[in-house]
């Protein structure tokens, strides 16, 4: 495979609601920051790919207006996925493999604040069998958490440790939405939200945007001192129907991890897209991570979880830590669908 690297990453500060800006205005600072960091404009980009969803924007073809703001004139090579930006990055990586272009811009954004997010996400469910029940995303995650606890593989105390660590680490993340230093016991003393999940076990609802620039080989080396090379990237899906899956494991993450070569080296850092505390525990096992791996130093999705964007942000957070020398090799993960239905795994590495 051709060597492709993340050479810049930018994100907007995660906020519960950004009412004063539309999606375009919210996204643009991230796009321009990512380009400016590597002294580029849209004219230097070979391929542009974005991730977003009409259902959160509340309008058909919502990505069209954000593309307008990128300034696609003269006409550009461009594509869009109705998926998290991590999959847009995957498409860009595939395109770069063809060897015709050397650079790509990837961006993603979502404003969840205008609607009732857990209710909006019920529209992802099978429209004939489960959708009419309006089973919201938090309740479905609670079913998964209950299954995990019942299996004996984890306890509520384990979940509480994830919550306490994530929010504490988020104190060091200027873009985080939820950050504090409270003990696991403090968390366990709070009431259930939807049992066995407490509010603290759940990711916040976030408006936000992010952008990444990818570059191939020598172009990447010419732009940054230490590019974060994509050593492996793969994604897999499972049925949406909860009854068809063992919710206490993430089979699709496991397959993707194998294909991406997670186990081929030491994993210094893992940025995992786990919108609920128990999901980090499931992902850690699926990825085969040991206790020597630092998980979610950014605070992860529990610190900020912009829809369609949080997966791409995991890749960006990891790339930043590799480029600044904090880590040599790491794993970034993105998820989509209820209860970790679809998962993408990327292995990034800095040059020795």
């Amino acid at each position: 495979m051709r060597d492709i690297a993340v050479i810049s990453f930018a994100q907007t500060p995660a906020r519960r609601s950004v009412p004063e800006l539309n999606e375009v205005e919210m996204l643009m600072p991230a796009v321009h920051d990512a380009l400016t960091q590597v002294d580029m404009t849209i004219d230097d980009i070979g391929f542009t790919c974005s991730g977003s969803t009409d259902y959160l924007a509340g309008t058909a073809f919502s990505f069209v207006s954000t593309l307008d703001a990128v300034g696609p004139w003269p006409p550009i090579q461009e594509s869009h996925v109705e998926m998290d930006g991590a999959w847009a990055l995957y498409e860009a990586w595939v395109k770069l493999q063809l060897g015709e272009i050397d650079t790509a811009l990837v961006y993603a954004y979502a404003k969840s604040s205008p609607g009732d997010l857990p209710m909006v996400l019920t529209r992802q469910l099978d429209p004939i069998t489960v959708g009419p029940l309006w089973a919201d995303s938090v309740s479905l995650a609670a079913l998964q958490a209950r299954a995990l606890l019942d299996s004996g593989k984890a306890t509520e105390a384990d979940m509480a440790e994830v919550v306490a660590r994530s929010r504490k680490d988020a104190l060091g993340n200027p873009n985080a939405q939820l950050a504090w230093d409270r003990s696991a016991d403090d968390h366990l003393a709070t009431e259930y939200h939807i049992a066995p999940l407490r509010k603290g076990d759940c990711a916040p609802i976030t408006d936000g945007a992010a952008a990444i620039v990818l570059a191939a080989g020598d172009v990447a080396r010419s732009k940054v001192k230490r590019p974060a090379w994509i050593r492996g990237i793969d994604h897999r899906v499972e049925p949406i129907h909860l009854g068809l899956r063992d919710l206490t494991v993430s089979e699709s993450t496991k397959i993707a991890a194998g294909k991406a070569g997670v186990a081929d080296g030491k994993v210094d850092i893992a940025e995992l897209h786990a919108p609920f505390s128990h999901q980090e525990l499931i992902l850690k096992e699926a990825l085969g991570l040991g206790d020597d791996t630092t998980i979610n130093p950014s605070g992860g999705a529990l610190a900020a979880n912009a829809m369609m964007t949080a997966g791409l942000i995991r890749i960006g957070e990891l790339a930043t830590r590799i480029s600044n020398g904090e880590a040599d090799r790491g794993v970034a993960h993105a998820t989509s669908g209820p209860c970790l239905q679809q998962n993408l795994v990327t292995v990034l590495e800095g040059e020795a």
Partner: protein
Amino acid sequence: MGKERVAVVGIGQTKHEATRGDVSVAGLLREAAGRALADAEMTWSDVDAVVIGKAPDFFEGVMMPELFLADALGCTGKPMFRVHTAGSVGGSTAIVASQLISAGIHERVLTVAFEKQSESEAMWALSLPIPFTPPLHAGAGGYFAPHVRSYIRRSKAPDHIGMLVALKDRQNGLKNPYAHLHEHDISFDSIKDSMMLWDPIRYAETCPSSDGACALVLGSEKVADEAAAQGRQPAWIQGTAMRSEPTLSAERDTVLPLGGALCAADVYKQAGITNPRKDVDAVEMYVPFSWFEPMWLENLGFAEPGEGWKMTEAGATALDGDLPVNMSGGVLCTNPIGASGMLRFGEAAMQVRGTAGEHQVDSVRKAVGHAYGGGSQFFAMWVVGKDKP
């Protein structure tokens, strides 16, 4: 690392209708995908990855529907990808799928595009009022009619050209058993007498709203060689291209969009086409309103600007013309929006493979598939041929 060769080795589509009340969305997709797999002499387990495309999710009222379709499309444990690039999506989905093979990642990729328009009302799904955004009042026809009027003014084309296109495409559609509209009594006069919807676009010059799906099985060189050895002609992908331009930009010419011209130039270069009119044997282009045939003939380089309508008038684009256009009946007969682009790409491949039945054109060696979307701003094209690129 280089580009691996890719070919279409299986094609399937549904019977397209205004309302496919007999199937769910999953059933609709499986009808198309099952036919494509059967055509490729494969089963679900042979597929490495699935790439799904469709237009806005509001058209069915399911958010990111590929998630609930994953197991119905045999994706369990496999990569599944969802593309959405407006009306060009059926074409760009096929291109994204082909790149998974040309990049050397997969050998066999199933790509499916669909729309089940009967689940909602596309015209109004397109007309949601958004603050500070120009409204797309009354759907696509109201948006494109001024472009057509501008074309007529610039080219001095006579009024009847649009009606000629509609008559030709609807008559071609009679030869396509999968087409939505089968208007046996259609005539020039019946088109002329049909209601004016968005001047100069009449009711009979407008695409229908359809339920339907299209599926393609794409294979690596090895897979396609095996198919060829068993007597199943692959449609070799000789070039693919996509271009996007802004909706709102002072530099734009929506009658003759630069993005479309650049897309065509790119794909022709890859396919070794220097004289499109001579080198291309058949074209399936995205013509949702009749007048877009002459407009796209010019944009894609088959005619000089202002001259496209003369090809239509002279019958050059008829099934027995020197450059048949929309042999299947095109979007004017069948428009499951998300699938419409892939149906164009698929028809081009069928022509090359010689499997187009009654609407087959003799000895097609190179065919063009074309799709566009948004406000004439998203373009996807491919060239397929009998010969390996």
